[in-house]
């Protein structure tokens, strides 16, 4: 399961919207995965672990109805826009700054998405899972996965345009 630790954390972090809560969830999920590994009969350990992470996240108090107030600015952790990021795009510091701002904005917009859209988007775009795998992890029909993904992307684009590209 360790090769999938980053995947587990990434999902937990996006679901919980808080790094400490995400670490708690991942810790619980990893131990649960260890306990139940003997009964694991699948072929995709990453998807299996992500399902455990998701279950743990959903049963935790903080995620009760997928409604949680997150003040703007708290969504991006300090240091996330690391100076490295700015320097690495060395060709044009100003572009890099705009880019970094854009990333931060996108991060906030995704964080603000309803949880069922957010998790679908994260599993597809960041974990690059197939519709089928997402359907299994979220226990949702593939058609619903597709429409959620569509809504998530639309909302993201809409919000990004409304937020302005200043």
């Amino acid at each position, binding site marked *: 399961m360790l090769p999938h630790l980053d995947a587990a954390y990434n999902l937990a972090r996006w679901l919980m919207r808080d790094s400490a809560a995400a670490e708690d969830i991942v810790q619980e999920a990893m*131990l649960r995965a*260890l306990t139940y590994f003997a009964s694991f009969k699948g072929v995709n350990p990453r998807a299996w672990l992500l399902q455990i992470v998701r279950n743990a996240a959903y049963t935790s108090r903080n995620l009760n109805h997928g409604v949680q107030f997150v003040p703007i600015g708290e969504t991006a952790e300090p240091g996330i826009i690391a100076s490295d990021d700015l320097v690495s795009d060395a060709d044009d510091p100003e572009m890099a700054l705009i880019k970094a701002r854009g990333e931060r904005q996108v991060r906030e917009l*995704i964080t603000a998405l309803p949880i069922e859209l957010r998790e679908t988007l994260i599993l597809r775009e960041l974990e690059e899972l197939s519709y089928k795998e997402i359907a299994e992890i979220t226990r949702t029909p593939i058609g619903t996965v597709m429409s959620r993904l569509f809504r998530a*992307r639309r909302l993201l684009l*809409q919000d990004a345009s409304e937020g302005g590209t200043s």
Partner: protein
Amino acid sequence: MIAALKCDKMLLVQAELDGELDAAEAAALAVHRQECAICQGAAAELTRARALIGDDLYQPVRDEFRQRIIAQLAAAASPRIPPSLGWRRRWWPSAAGFGIGAACAAGLTALMLTSAQIDLTEQIVAGHVRALQPGHLEDVASTDQHTVKPWFDGRIDFAPPVKDLVAERFALRGGRLDYIGGRPVATLVYQRDKHLIDLYGWPATDVERSPETMQRQGYNIVHWTRNGMALWAVSDLEPSQLREFVEAWRRSP
């Protein structure tokens, strides 16, 4: 702006961008799209939405937390290892994958190393047989080596060589990840007629090794090492044809 109009094919447009359509479905959609302004608009929007999400949004674990988890798993795993451990052959690859996590437990590490040395060939065959179950053959299905190769980026810590041998009548079908010998490995899937060939690859300790042919459970296996990559081809093809595949692979630039 965002199209308010709807077409019932819009989700298919999205599925195509996500690489979820097969060639026939994609072709049918292309015909429709030429005449559907809504779907054209949707494709443009979806492409822009996808571009908004960069890899930098990925949130990896802190090193300190990773260490903590490793220690906890090791502590939790060590008293729990029963002598038999139920290493049923069929599930060995997954079990080996998990083993990486638990490998911190010294006893398990020893167990895995021994098993890995003895059973590598059997794991290869088991992986191949498992992949032949419906729906398990490829994680990325494509005949294009320029699609298959990048798919491995970020999934494994090495770049497997991907070659298209369609000219030699070995058509690339796609790729997937497997767990062999306790580590993630790249698997390429080729096909000749009705026969499938799995080609496993991972970084090797020895640099060069000539092809060596083996047989297990009715499957033919050829193992060789090239440019620091250990390569294992397994198939139900005749040994001579599998050998031909290996030679074609080795000749190909």
